[in-house]
């Protein structure tokens, strides 16, 4: 069975489960929206909010990432499906790619809402070249988060106390994404006098991060999901 066919089946299955259970739409999205509103109340200053909007969006994304990753592996472990996939000899690389694609799609939906919230709540502006930078930054950062989330989700799937273990392990690893994506987003928003051109090197780092964890995941996911 080809890796791409398995990946498509796993991604379609995960997205169908999400559409039925509506965890992202009914729980994660309201949670992230609340985080954005709470930040607005806490900072209560338009200038400060516009300056830090990029960081707040990515911080809210990271908080939500933990919930989405835990959810995406909970559906595999709840009735022993991950074990069944292993016993069936299903190519682990296909599982990794499929789960990463599903996670990527869910995060993109989430981030779209968060960026719209930032425009509405924090009154940030973005022009044409800034939008190109922002979209590229979101795609690269989300790919990195999806790969690393799938990798660590698989690692902690069978562990005791995985609910607390996952953020503990994941947060330090995704710190570079938070930093680079925030800098690139600030450039896209031209916060604090930054130019759009200054954001591209950060996007390059995000692309490298995504490539490293994508490749690392493909090579190591099989060992990670073994007992």
């Amino acid at each position: 069975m080809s890796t791409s066919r398995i990946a498509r089946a796993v991604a379609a299955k995960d997205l169908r489960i999400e559409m039925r259970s509506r965890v992202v739409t009914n729980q994660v999205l309201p949670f992230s929206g609340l985080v954005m509103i709470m930040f607005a109340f806490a900072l209560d200053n338009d200038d400060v909010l516009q300056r830090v909007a990029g960081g707040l969006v990515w911080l809210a994304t990271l908080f939500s990432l933990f919930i989405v990753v835990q959810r995406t592996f909970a559906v595999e472990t709840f009735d022993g499906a991950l074990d069944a996939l292993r016993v069936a000899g299903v190519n682990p690389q296909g599982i990794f790619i499929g789960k990463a694609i599903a996670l990527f799609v869910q995060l993109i939906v989430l981030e779209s809402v968060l960026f719209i919230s930032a425009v509405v709540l924090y009154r940030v502006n973005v022009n044409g070249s800034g939008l190109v930078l922002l979209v590229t930054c979101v795609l690269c950062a989300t790919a990195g988060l999806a790969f690393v989330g799938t990798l660590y989700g698989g690692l902690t799937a069978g562990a005791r106390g995985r609910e607390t273990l996952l953020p503990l392990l994941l947060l330090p690893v995704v710190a570079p994404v938070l930093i680079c994506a925030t800098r690139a987003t600030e450039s896209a928003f031209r916060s604090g006098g930054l130019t759009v051109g200054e954001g591209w090197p950060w996007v390059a780092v995000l692309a490298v991060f995504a490539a490293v964890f994508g490749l690392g995941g493909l090579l190591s996911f099989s060992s990670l999901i073994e007992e």
Partner: protein
Amino acid sequence: MSTNSVINFVDAVAVYNGYPALAGVTIRVERNEIVLLQGPNGAGKSTLLRACAGLIPVIRGTANVLGHDLTIDRESVRERVGLLGHQNGLFGELTIEENVSFWSTVVGASTEERNSAMERMAIDGKLAGRRVSELSAGQKRRCALACLVVRRAELWLLDEPHAGLDAKGRDEIDRIVKEATASGATIVVASHEIERAQQLATRTISLVSGQVRDSQ
């Protein structure tokens, strides 16, 4: 090893959660047999099934399943083995048809094979569109068995297949097991339903504290 041997374990030792769950097991299962594994809780029945499926490493002794040496490679055997454990491996939010279709796709089975498996397990028709989370324990078990059937496994490892089922559901499981054997599969069943399983089995192996106490 006999050419007909599907499972050949000699003094096999496997550690599960830091405990030697198999402490020198020696068993041989021949092709087309239905073997009942019995023993008290913690005897090592589930561990033995999971070791046969290549999920738990055998750290000492000989462990050969379908010609694969599990002490060297635990992964190649998996495509030829089907394990139905305490859990069903199903996705509650998906319908029966979507579950069986998913498993058919990832193991490379055709639509015809999928439909045939669903028909055999009597989960086709109206029932196929129902979500797994809404099904009874017996219907879930039948759905899990359909997923096993599409895999065309040569060795079926069934852990408490009758658990949680009513008399009708248990009869259905027995019928499915007999059909699988008739089509060439070998079955190993771990069960506490001794009387029922003994009627089904061609041989019984008793396990106690991770060792074979009796084989008849």
